[in-house]
Structure formats: structure tokens, C-alpha cells
């Protein structure tokens, strides 16, 4: 394996690594505003219809939501662990941790799929066949519109993350990363942790409200 060289515009790989991280944070900043728009819409409608939103959130499946949160938090831990191993040339251990995190991501999506299936059965998909037993079905359908859009977009991010982690896993297994060159592992890790962070916020907005009522 030839030693990685910095691209021509950089003094050394360290500077290139720092620039790559900064670039990833700029991208994540745009992602904050992307999900932020949805969260603003949710907040405005929840402020306007507090009772209907509490009733609607009670219809989400908190057991699946909680297990999925634990799964994503654990996968993030495995990725953070892999990021510390990559510079030490522990290629096999790095690859295994990234692979395990990707598998947990797949489990997350599978459980999300089960949840969607149960919600379709309950007629909670907003539209012509939406059925809600509560007092304000129209406001409840606003919540479920947010629910499906926000969790759907998040699931797309998880799917992209699984592909990214798998590619980095293969490269790590080949021994591509070293103490001098491991920026891709760090960058992929930042993306995966961000997807985890978004889920932590969505969990608090979707599953927790209205439980005590």
C-alpha cells in the first residue's frame, strides 16, 4: 500500500484532514437547517393544536421508538470507537466495528418498516383513508404528515449512512488508513453521529409528548 499523499493545495495530510472536517461541519450546518424547517413547522402546529398533538403522539409506538433510539446510540458508540482505532492501523478491528454499526443501522430501518406497516394498518397515513378516533382528526393528520416526512427523510439519511459505513469498512479492511491518513473514517463518523443526533431530537418530539395525560 503506497503512503497516501496530500492533494496539491495542502501543505500536509493534517491540514487536509482539518479542512475535510471543517467542510463536513459546513454540510452538517445545512442539514441542521434542512431538518430545522420541519421542526419549525411541527412547533407551530403543536402550539396551535396542543391537545390534538398530544392525542396523536400517543398513537406512536414508543416501545419501537425507544429500542430504535438505543440501537442508533449504540451504533454511534461503535463508530466513535472505530474512529479511535483507524489511526493505529488496527484495520480488522476498525472494519468490524464499522460493519457492526452498519448492521445496527439495517436493524433500525427494519424496525422502522414494521412501525410504518402497523401505522398503515391503523389508517394513520394522512390522506383519504386517514382514520383517527380523537376529537380533532384534521390536526392529528398534520402531526402524522410531519411524522412520516421527518422519519422518512431521516430513514433516507440512515440508508445513505449504511452505504457510507460499508464503503469505509471495505477500505479499512484493505488497510487504506494509517496514523497519517484516516480522514474518511472521521468524516463518515461525523455524518453517522449527526444522523443519530437528529433522531434524538425527533424521538423527543414524536414519541414522548402526551404520555402522562
Amino acid at each position, binding site marked *: 500500500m503506497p503512503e497516501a499523499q496530500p492533494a496539491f493545495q495542502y501543505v500536509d495530510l493534517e491540514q487536509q484532514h482539518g479542512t475535510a472536517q471543517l467542510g463536513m461541519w459546513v454540510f452538517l450546518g445545512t442539514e441542521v437547517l434542512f431538518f430545522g424547517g420541519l421542526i419549525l413547522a411541527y412547533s407551530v402546529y403543536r402550539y396551535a393544536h396542543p391537545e390534538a398533538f398530544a392525542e396523536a403522539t400517543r398513537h406512536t409506538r414508543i416501545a419501537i421508538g*425507544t429500542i430504535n433510539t438505543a440501537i442508533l446510540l449504540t451504533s454511534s458508540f461503535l463508530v466513535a470507537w472505530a474512529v479511535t482505532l483507524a489511526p493505529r492501523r*488496527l484495520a480488522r478491528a476498525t472494519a468490524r466495528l464499522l460493519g457492526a454499526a452498519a448492521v445496527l443501522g439495517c436493524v433500525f430501518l427494519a424496525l422502522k418498516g414494521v412501525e410504518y406497516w402497523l401505522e398503515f394498518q391503523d389508517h394513520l397515513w394522512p390522506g383519504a383513508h386517514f382514520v383517527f378516533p380523537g376529537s380533532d382528526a384534521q390536526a392529528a393528520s398534520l402531526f402524522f404528515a410531519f411524522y412520516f416526512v421527518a422519519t422518512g427523510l431521516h430513514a433516507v439519511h440512515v440508508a445513505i449512512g449504511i452505504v457510507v459505513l460499508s464503503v469505509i469498512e471495505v477500505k479499512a479492511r484493505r488497510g487504506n488508513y494509517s496514523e497519517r491518513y484516516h480522514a474518511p473514517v472521521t468524516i463518515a463518523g461525523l455524518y453517522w*453521529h449527526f444522523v443519530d443526533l437528529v433522531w*434524538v431530537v425527533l424521538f423527543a418530539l414524536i414519541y414522548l409528548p402526551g404520555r402522562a395525560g
Partner: protein
Amino acid sequence: MTSQPASWHPPRALVFCWLGLMTLLAITVALAYVPLGTANTVVALAIATIKALLIAATFMELRERSGMMIAFAGAGFFWLAIMLWLAFADYVTRPDFPPPG
């Protein structure tokens, strides 16, 4: 740090962060069922914020990064806070200023 742990072991900070996040998850789910009125929302959002900060500081290694990197990381949240603030300045005060006629 004076002594390095055995080579492939996870750093302690990561293990504590993961345990902390799992504990906070259990606490936030348990507290969601305790009737606290509007405080339920405050508690849920406060715990979510602590979890997000733990992830950013430890998993995303921001606590080891320069001020500039932290500024870049915080920029999106800063502008989001302004968007939420201005939007709610409108929606919360609307009943006080009904349209004329």
C-alpha cells in the same frame, strides 16, 4: 493521559458517554409518563439537548477541536435558533394584534 489502554479497547470517555446516553434515554421515557403538565415538554427537550451535546462533544470529538471548528459546528444551530425565535415572536403574539376590521 499517562497510560494508554490495551490497543483495541474503547477510550473510557466513549464508554461513559454511551452509558450516559442509555441512562438518559431510560430517564426521559420514564419521566414522559409522570404527569408534570407543561414541564413534561421542558424535561423531554432538556434531556434531548443534553444527549445531543454529549454526542457532539464526545462521539463527534468537538471537545478536542479548535474554537473555529466549534463555531462552524454551532453556526447551523445558531441560525436555527433565530428562525424559531422570530417565527414564535409572530405566532405567540398574534392574538394580541388581531387584524383590523
